[in-house]
């Protein structure tokens, strides 16, 4: 049986999320959107899946390969634009209809998570966060290797390190190889993706921290999506590029789809200012 998956093209409401990756490759609780959908289609009995990608199809292809992980044959096809469900059916379901999964499971637009159609992902950052929060209690599926529920509502991924003095408040999700230093507070409603580093004294609540993001000492990330050096407040819908790496940055170099706008602000604060600032805040707030 065959099925079609349509990757979302750019979405104005979450433009920052698509800055470094196509939306189908953005991680949510350790898996990309297209991985969730391939899980779902494999569960429905699909054997072949055609993925239509208008945005950076090479990256989509690199992320999922030929589908062997799911026991599927996956073909990623570049498309000029995002198709509607009907357009995709007309264009691709030219062969015997009996070979396709019965409608409506024959075609999906990946603008929501499987099983959560009431929670659109890409209309706004607030919606993205709401979906991540809703996914938390459902994400501990049997195929997750090494994820443990430390206490009710606190999930910790493989090889994550949580210092003894860190405080975890449910619900929160700590991804693979995340590192949380003593004195940090995670939660409630916090999602840390893989390889996040939370430095001493930092607080993360009602937020998603993207993969490989460093959150500096004594910082507070609240009502936000932090992705590398990009900080989006989902409540106020404002977006900030943080230029001070001791506050927030990516742990690895990021390659943007388009060159970032040049800023007159310096990339690094002077070391003396950084040290003074950290000393002041640590003295005043602890």
């Amino acid at each position, binding site marked *: 049986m065959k099925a079609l998956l349509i990757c979302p093209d750019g979405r104005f409401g979450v433009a920052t999320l698509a800055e470094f990756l196509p939306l189908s490759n953005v991680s949510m609780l350790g898996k990309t959107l297209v991985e969730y959908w391939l899980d779902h289609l494999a569960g429905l009995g699909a054997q072949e899946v055609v993925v239509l990608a208008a945005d950076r199809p090479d990256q989509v292809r690199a992320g999922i390969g030929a589908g062997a992980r799911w026991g599927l044959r996956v073909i990623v096809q570049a498309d000029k634009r995002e198709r509607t469900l009907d357009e995709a059916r007309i264009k691709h379901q030219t062969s015997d209809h009996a070979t396709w999964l019965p409608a409506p499971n024959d075609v999906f637009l990946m603008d929501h998570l499987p099983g959560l159609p009431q929670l659109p992902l890409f209309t706004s950052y607030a919606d993205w966060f709401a979906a991540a929060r809703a996914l938390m209690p459902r994400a501990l599926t049997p195929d997750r290797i090494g994820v443990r529920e430390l206490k009710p509502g606190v999930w910790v991924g493989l090889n994550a390190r949580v210092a003894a003095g860190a405080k975890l408040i449910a619900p929160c999700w700590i991804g693979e190889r995340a590192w949380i230093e003593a004195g940090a507070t995670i939660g409630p409603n916090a999602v840390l993706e893989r390889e996040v580093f939370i430095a001493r004294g930092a607080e993360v609540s009602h937020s998603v921290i993207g993969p490989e993001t460093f959150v500096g000492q004594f*910082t*507070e990330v609240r009502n936000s999506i932090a992705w590398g050096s990009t900080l989006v407040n989902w409540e*106020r819908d404002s977006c900030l590029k943080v230029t*001070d790496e001791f506050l927030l940055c990516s742990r690895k170099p990021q390659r943007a789809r388009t060159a970032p706008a040049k800023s*007159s*602000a310096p990339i690094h604060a002077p070391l003396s*200012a950084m040290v*003074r*600032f950290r000393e002041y805040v640590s003295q005043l*707030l602890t």
Partner: protein
Amino acid sequence: MNINRQNGTLSVTGLRELNSTNAHSFRSAVAGALSHDLQAIEIDLSQTQTVDGAGLGALVALYETAKEHRKREGFAIRLTNPAPTVQQMIELARLHHLFEITPPGSALDGAIPLST
């Protein structure tokens, strides 16, 4: 940058940026205008487009200087009308716990006293 004083309040306006290029001069200028009869400092951030770690450090340093200078209860430092991104930066660094933040369109009331 303009510094005016009226009715016990020191107002700082016209601050287009608060970063490593002007953090030192900002701190020196405001600290130099402090006096013992001040009741509040208001820093208008409505024209401020960028704030970085050096600028945040200058604000914290000003907080410390003002605390030493003025130990009376009820003294406040207000950051008024920050752009959303500037407010994000302030909150990321947790300075909203030290300063009263008055977003654009908000009434000025309930000043948080400077701890002594």
